[in-house]
């Protein structure tokens, strides 16, 4: 296949060449264990803290409030399970939403089996949490509110500041899964009263297998992974120095060009959205029209099944994803699309296109032209479609 248009940057991103460049010396030269006494390795401790600095600064946190984990899922598990554990004497109720990533939802379900009570908030048709619902859900036993910063499927950005304020007023801890938002949107943990935050390197041109956890000073959660004294005794395991250098370098890079990058993405995204909505019938945009991730477009095409659509796009060199996630081991239609009120068979025909800064309008033209044909072709094959 000659052409390759990668439009699945919400699934993962290319590690930026300068990020790889920055990581390389830490594999074969400065490979020492940062906990060592000898200077060759101990210098890596300093290097790690520099990355912590970069990340702390980006979100208005203090250096020692940043911890490195093995990814976004680990951060999410840590936040939920260890808060539940540490604050169990205060209460057993946790509030989250129906549209969280599975790293939150399945962890919450796990906690339910262990005696915790979870409220899964509904969202409106744009995918936003309703603040009144949130307030009404709060109980004296509520110990944690966990609401994602922005949704990975439909891109909707939550009213995080308002949610943080409500949590703060009630003295409830507030965690946000910012895996999709980090590096794409400005985040300030103080302004938004965020107590814990998850992020994942590979979503912003950093490496896979490395994540971030912000924990506000004073939050008393303990280790999720027990063992050595790394990460101020809160996350055991020999530090993944190349990974940490990679995520730090990627964070710095994302922060540096955030404004211009996302401005361009927004423009190209809006061009994509307009063309698709204008030119393909029986089609809708999922997620909020403006309060959405700069690089996210998510459509539903009636009478069309998602996987078939993806394979056809793949044949044209277009990498995209669907809410149906047939192949990732689950056949259920996206819980997010169902939560915003889509019927089963429409949720099935959804398409997520997530851009990066390199995608131009000409690329979008190529995508839309092909998409039109493919959708028409699949509809012809569909027993649901009567033209």
């Amino acid at each position, binding site marked *: 296949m000659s052409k390759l248009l990668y439009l699945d940057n919400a699934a993962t991103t290319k590690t930026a060449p300068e990020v790889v460049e920055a990581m390389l010396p830490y594999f074969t030269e400065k490979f020492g264990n940062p906990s060592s006494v000898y200077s060759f390795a101990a210098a890596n401790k300093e290097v790690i803290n520099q990355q912590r600095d970069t990340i702390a600064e980006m979100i208005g946190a203090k250096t020692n409030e940043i911890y490195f984990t093995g990814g976004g899922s680990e951060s999410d598990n840590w936040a939920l399970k260890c808060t539940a554990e540490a604050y169990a004497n205060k209460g057993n109720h946790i509030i989250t939403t129906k549209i969280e990533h599975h790293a939150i939802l399945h962890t919450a379900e796990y906690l339910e089996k262990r005696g915790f009570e979870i409220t899964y908030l509904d969202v409106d048709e744009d995918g936003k949490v309703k603040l009144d619902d949130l307030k009404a859900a709060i109980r004296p036993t509520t110990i944690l509110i966990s609401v994602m910063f922005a949704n990975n499927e439909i891109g909707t950005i939550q009213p995080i500041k308002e949610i943080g304020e409500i949590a703060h007023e009630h003295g409830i801890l507030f965690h946000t899964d910012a895996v999709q938002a980090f590096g794409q949107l400005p985040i300030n943990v103080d302004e938004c009263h965020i107590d814990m935050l998850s992020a994942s390197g590979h979503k912003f041109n950093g490496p896979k297998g490395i994540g971030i956890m912000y924990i506000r000073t004073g939050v008393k959660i303990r280790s999720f992974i027990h063992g050595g004294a790394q990460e101020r005794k809160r996350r055991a395991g020999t530090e993944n120095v190349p990974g940490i250098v990679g995520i730090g370098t990627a964070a710095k890079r994302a922060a540096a060009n955030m404004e211009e990058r996302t401005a361009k993405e927004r423009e190209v995204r809006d061009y994509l959205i307009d063309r698709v909505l204008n030119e393909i019938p029986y089609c809708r945009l999922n997620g909020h029209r403006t309060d959405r991730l700069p690089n996210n477009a998510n459509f539903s095409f009636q*009478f069309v*099944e998602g996987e078939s659509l993806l*394979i056809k796009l793949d*044949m044209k060199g277009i990498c995209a994803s669907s809410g149906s996630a047939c192949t990732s081991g689950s*056949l259920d*239609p996206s819980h997010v699309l169902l939560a915003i009120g889509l019927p089963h068979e429409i949720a*099935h025909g959804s398409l997520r296109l997530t851009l990066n800064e390199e995608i131009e309008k000409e690329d979008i033209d190529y995508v839309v032209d092909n998409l039109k044909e493919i959708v028409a072709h699949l509809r*012809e094959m569909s*027993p649901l479609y009567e033209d």
Partner: protein
Amino acid sequence: MYSEKVMDHFEHPRNVGEIENASGVGTVGNAKCGDIMRIYLDIDENQIIRDVKFKTFGCGAAVATSSMATEMVKGKTIQEAMEVTNKAVMEALDGLPPVKVHCSLLAEEAIHAALWDYAEKHDIKIEGLEKPKSDIHEGEEAEEEEY
């Protein structure tokens, strides 16, 4: 994830379409994934399947198995068609990923449903054929839950 044969049948599906005044039509849905398939049969007086068409709202495996299954029953007698099981179709396609085994059931069941429709219309009984369920639930499948 799919074999070359599956991809070929997905890319160039055989027998897509409808048959007007078909001898039998069957539509089934898969409760597992929500996908839907409809089969049209044109059966002559010797109970030979002269023509067959399908429409499918489903994944790549569903499209490919529809295509292959229709190829396999075309020109066959009803009794021969009854032997075109989902296993046989999968084998003809060089296999399917474990999570996609259920998709191949759609094709089998859709053919059975169309045959049932034909049998009812002509008031005959086809050996081994049971009344189709509108939704397919299947028992065992290569679920990865058993470690």
